[in-house]
């Protein structure tokens, strides 16, 4: 009698262990740890960095790893192409350029956008003779990188006043040195990007400068840049890619709803990176729509610009080809 009871008890125990084991392994397979390497930008953060700091990725086993700084978007795309990072982040024009030149990328979600609160501003010193877009012809403009948002904003601005696209001289200056090069008269205009709100705030606070124009004057309300993933990464980790996009959008919405707390988290991130945490107080947010939504206009506008420049064949690229759709990715798994 006791033997039979013992045997039954044992089989129940074994069945129980197996059930737990199966469900644990199913759970684990759904949450295999994935590390996404990325390059940070001085004085600025992306929604995915905020999401990581808030712990949104932990339940999904996703962790982000900062492997250094990129001076600008194109540099992070080179790193993405060579496999040194898993997340690239660049202006829309640079992303389209990179895909059109054959790199197997997809734009995942817009990391920042420009609207009436979040803008790139072109500053001059108070005593400068430059007062409007027409005056920038022949002048030197400090930008963080070539081939990205500020470069194309200048081209669009010149196009809007019927000047040749290379009428202004762009000079690459790292973000922390923008103010210095402007004040020491080494450049005529300092272009402070919408993602460099920290340096923008400090520049205004130190005074003696005025704005000539900003990118919303030229481009309207539009997404500024995108996080970029490689196609083979999306195929290998479709769930991680989907969660990456969804949680980053959630972090962006949170920062819109709680700007003061977001600034505190931003200050912590700057502190960890060894930058100046006080700059976080100047932050104006990501400038994204609710849910970090992408409108076709965000991509189509730049496709048109590049087709007009002659860099893209007409009609070959549409927004749908360039954007990662999380719904289709996990369905195909």
């Amino acid at each position, binding site marked *: 009698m006791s033997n039979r009871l013992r045997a039954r008890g044992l089989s129940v125990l074994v069945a129980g262990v197996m059930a737990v084991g199966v469900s644990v392994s199913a759970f684990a397979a759904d949450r295999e740890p994935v590390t996404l390497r990325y390059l940070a930008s001085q004085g600025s953060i992306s929604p995915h960095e905020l999401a990581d700091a808030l712990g949104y990725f932990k339940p999904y086993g996703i962790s982000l790893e900062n492997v250094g700084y990129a001076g600008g978007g194109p540099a992070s*795309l080179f790193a993405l192409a060579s496999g040194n990072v898993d997340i690239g982040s660049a202006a829309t024009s640079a992303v389209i*350029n990179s895909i059109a030149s*054959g790199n197997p990328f997809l734009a995942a979600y817009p990391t920042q956008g420009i609207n009436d609160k979040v803008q790139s501003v072109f500053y001059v010193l108070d005593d400068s003779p430059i007062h409007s877009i027409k005056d920038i012809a022949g002048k030197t403009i400090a930008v963080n990188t070539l*081939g990205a948002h500020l470069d194309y904003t200048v081209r669009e601005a010149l196009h809007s006043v019927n000047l040749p696209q290379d009428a202004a001289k762009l000079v690459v200056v790292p973000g922390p040195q923008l103010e210095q090069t402007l004040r020491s008269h080494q450049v005529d205009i300092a272009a402070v990007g919408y993602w460099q709100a920290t340096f923008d705030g400090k520049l205004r606070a130190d005074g003696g400068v005025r704005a000539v124009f900003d990118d919303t004057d030229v481009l309207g309300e539009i997404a500024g840049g995108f996080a970029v993933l490689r196609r083979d990464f999306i195929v290998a980790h479709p769930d991680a890619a989907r969660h990456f996009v969804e949680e980053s959008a959630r972090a962006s919405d949170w920062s819109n709803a709680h700007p003061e707390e977001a600034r505190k988290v931003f200050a912590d991130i700057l502190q960890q990176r060894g930058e100046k945490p006080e700059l976080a107080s100047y932050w104006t947010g990501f400038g994204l729509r609710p849910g970090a939504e992408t409108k076709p206009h965000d991509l189509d506008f730049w496709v048109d610009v590049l087709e007009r420049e002659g860099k893209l064949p007409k009609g070959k690229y549409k927004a749908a080809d360039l954007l990662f759709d999380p719904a289709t990715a996990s369905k195909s798994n």
Partner: protein
Amino acid sequence: MSLERSERGFFPQEQRPLHDTVAQGVKWSVQRLGPLFARYGVVMAFLVAWQVLTETGLVNPAVIPPLDRIAVALWEGIVGGKLLGDIAISLQRAGIAFATAVAVAIPLGIVMGQVRPVERALDPILQVFRQTSALALYPVFILLLGLGEASKVFVIFWATLFPLLLNTIGGVKEVDPKLIEMARVYGAGSATVFRRVVLPGAVPTIFVGLRLSATTALLLLIAAEMIGANKGIGFQVMNAQYNFEIPTMFAAIVILAALGLISNYALVLLQRRLCRWSSVAA
């Protein structure tokens, strides 16, 4: 009789000329093209491998484009004129810096080589300046001279000055003392010894310095144009990369390499003319 015919093989008499022509053609090819292949065979194999690997996709064509696309970009750049302005301004920068370095280094080097006290006085500080990399000092030059042409020309001048100076000093000091002795024995005064023995004897070493400096000038040109420039071949290498125009980037690199080859060859020709008495290896 039949043995002879069978030794000639199965070809009837009428077809022998073709056989002969082919044999002659092969012999001519080997004789004429053989040396060509011996010299350039590896280069040609490299280029063929490049085209094949990138066309078939074994090497990512977005990162290293096939040769035909680079050739098209090169054509558009030079014949189409897209890169001509950049080439002109780069040559201008490097040319001015190099010419100034020559104008400063050669007289100074000759004086320092001949006059001991001057060399003793200047040598320590020149060694200090020489060891400090020009690129490390570039930010200092930018602060002093601004972001314009002056700082770029100056950094190239700084880097090309020292190899030339050192080679000139060495060339002047290392003239064969027996030649000088022989000239003195024949009654030559100091000036004549200098003009007829020391100077010509130093020329080969000076030319080594010139060729080294020309290479350094082009290297520094690329680096100087990557900061604070918006025109130039070095700038175009970076600009094309950031705009994902990779064939243009490679075309600019090829142009830079060609400029280096041309300047080296020009100096070799010049040296051959000036130093007919010594054979110069390219």
